[in-house]
């Protein structure tokens, strides 16, 4: 080959090699960016986006940048499945990140499993999610742990003997968490004073609270979402129920205090993360998050989204490829990954054994109480 042609050929080869090496790794995310639970979807999206940006700034994964493709499921049932299918078939993502709501994760999980695309749920705590198949993971604790934590807290710290439960009848998370709390608290010798139910979107809980008041209890467990929990506590205080109210990670939101107001004082809930945590990793995460997102303080779902993306990138690195089965195995072998929500180790059930953080509400502010190890 004449010299100039050889040079050109070499250059072309080099260019194509560089292009091939730089070809982005596509990750799919489906979240509730609009709709009733938009605040959560947006939180986790901000966490994931920030993680992807940090990873790319540090050189990417396996020499390639990460490309995040996000689909909105609008908090509407059925949309998560469609979003997942589109991400997998159309956008050819190597992995899926989503969702916060257990119900919506359960919609997309079978699709990820069927197409052998690993899926990591940042914050779905219902045990059924990872039972769908070996390609479905999560980076948070599950409700069997969360329910136990709150049951032990109620019995131990609050010395409650009789606890009433008021839970949603149509929300997968609430139903599951209520059941586990009931089992664990009863097993510990406690008595469930009353079990009341409400429907999603309900505004009036006075009937249920009146029945609870009549039954008499030392505390009330409300394993639902903050929108209903705030109203429940408010109405309870109006009805003269001054016992502590307890909740789970569904309470995570600033709106909880805005809607609940002073009524929320004396309540406790379990979550995955506290921005007041003194550890250097968390402090750095909070600083970067505030800098990136205009001074906003990250909540548990932002932190979990951040960690989910981090765990995924780490797994790709360890697997050395983005191939489905290899990635799945690498994810399953995740050990002591350090992130904003603590150290993540994926166990045999593809769940993460993570500590729970208990937050108390005093004087209209969130106060860190304790961390409960798994």
């Amino acid at each position, binding site marked *: 080959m004449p010299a100039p042609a050889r040079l050109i050929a070499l250059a072309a080869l080099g260019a194509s090699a560089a292009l091939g090496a730089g070809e982005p790794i596509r990750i799919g995310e489906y979240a509730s960016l*609009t*709709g*009733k*639970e*938009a*605040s959560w979807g947006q939180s986790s999206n901000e966490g994931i986006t920030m993680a992807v940006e940090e990873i790319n700034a540090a050189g990417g994964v396996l020499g390639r940048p990460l490309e995040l493709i996000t689909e909105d499921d609008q*908090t509407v049932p059925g949309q998560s499945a469609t979003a997942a299918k589109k991400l997998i078939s159309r956008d050819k993502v190597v992995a899926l990140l989503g969702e916060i709501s257990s119900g919506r994760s359960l919609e997309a999980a079978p699709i990820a499993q069927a197409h052998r695309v690993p899926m990591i749920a940042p914050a779905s705590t219902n045990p059924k999610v990872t039972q769908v198949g070996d390609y479905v993971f999560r980076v948070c604790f599950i409700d069997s742990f969360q329910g136990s934590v709150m049951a032990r807290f109620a019995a131990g710290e609050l010395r409650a003997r009789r606890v009433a439960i008021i839970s949603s*009848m149509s929300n997968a998370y609430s139903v599951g968490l209520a059941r586990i709390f009931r089992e664990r608290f009863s097993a510990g010798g406690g008595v469930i004073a009353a079990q*009341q*139910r*409400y*429907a999603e*979107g309900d*505004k*009036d809980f*006075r*009937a*249920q609270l*009146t*029945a609870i*008041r*009549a039954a008499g209890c030392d505390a009330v467990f409300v394993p639902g979402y903050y*929108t209903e929990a*705030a*109203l429940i506590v*408010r109405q309870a205080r*109006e*009805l*003269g129920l001054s016992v502590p109210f307890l909740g789970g990670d569904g309470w995570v939101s600033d*709106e909880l205090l*805005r*809607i609940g*107001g002073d009524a929320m004082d004396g309540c406790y809930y379990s979550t995955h993360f506290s921005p007041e945590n003194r550890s250097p990793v968390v402090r750095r995460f909070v600083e970067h998050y505030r800098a990136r997102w205009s001074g906003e303080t990250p909540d548990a779902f932002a932190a979990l989204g951040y960690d989910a993306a981090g765990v995924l990138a780490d797994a790709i690195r360890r697997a050395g490829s983005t191939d489905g089965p290899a990635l799945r195995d690498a994810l399953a072998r995740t050990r002591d990954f350090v992130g904003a929500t603590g150290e993540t180790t994926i166990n045999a059930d593809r769940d993460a054994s993570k500590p729970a953080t208990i937050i108390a509400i005093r004087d209209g502010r969130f106060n860190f109480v304790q961390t409960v190890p798994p």
Partner: protein
Amino acid sequence: MSEFLQQLINGLSLGAIYALIALGYTMVYGVLRFINFAHSDVFMVGAFIGYYAGRHLPQGTVWGGLVAMAAAMAGCALLGMLIERLVYRPLRGGPTLNVLITAIGMSLFLEYAGQLVFGATPRAFPTIFPSRVMEFHGLIISMNQVLVIVVAALLLLGLELTVFRTRIGTAMRAVALNPGAAQLVGINIDVVISFTFGLGSALAAAGGVLYALNYPSIDPLMGVVPGLKAFVAAVLGGVGNIPGAALGAMILGMVETFVDGSRWSTYKDAIAFTILIGILLFRPAGLLGRLTAEKV
């Protein structure tokens, strides 16, 4: 016993809220013979107007609360009349199915445009009236609950007076009986219908503000379920009948409250519709209504 009485109070206040919405439905149906599906969304707009007004007014004062409520009522009266003029009037005289579909379209439009404008996540409603909780021999009733009952009663009275003692009220009744004949005796149907819509919407707005006071979490879809239940209440009492709407609302509120606190609380949503089906099957005119023969 005290639990029973407490539930009674709860049911009364819930029923009063349903009554406020039901009054609007029953009036429009009485005059125009169609279900204004958009009524529940005017209720929602009223709550949002109250929200924005309340944020600019001092919290916890009576006059502040009244101003916010007046603003909501005025705003929604205008909205109701606008909707009637732009969307329902052109279809008057045509098949009722078309108006029904249009009403559904209008309702959906308000809901989803509301989600775009206000965002779908619930917001905290400001405390615009002084908020206090009173105790009475172990029974608890909040100021807001009292407000609802008092305002509902006043509005009911006001409505009865308007419909039976004023000229425009007589005109409304005439149009409800026979629109053609009403026109023949010189009643301006357009004015009467506009007025009816305005009045009904103002009532819905008041209902919206009071509802938001009691359940201070508002979102663009907040009107859907209360609206449906309020319509069931209107049918229960006899659609087109004002005291009937109030009675139906009270009964529905009570039944729902007692079911809610019982073992069958998970079937609560189904209660309202079961009542509706039952009434339509066994006493279609409602409790206080009279069956009118349909002339062909």
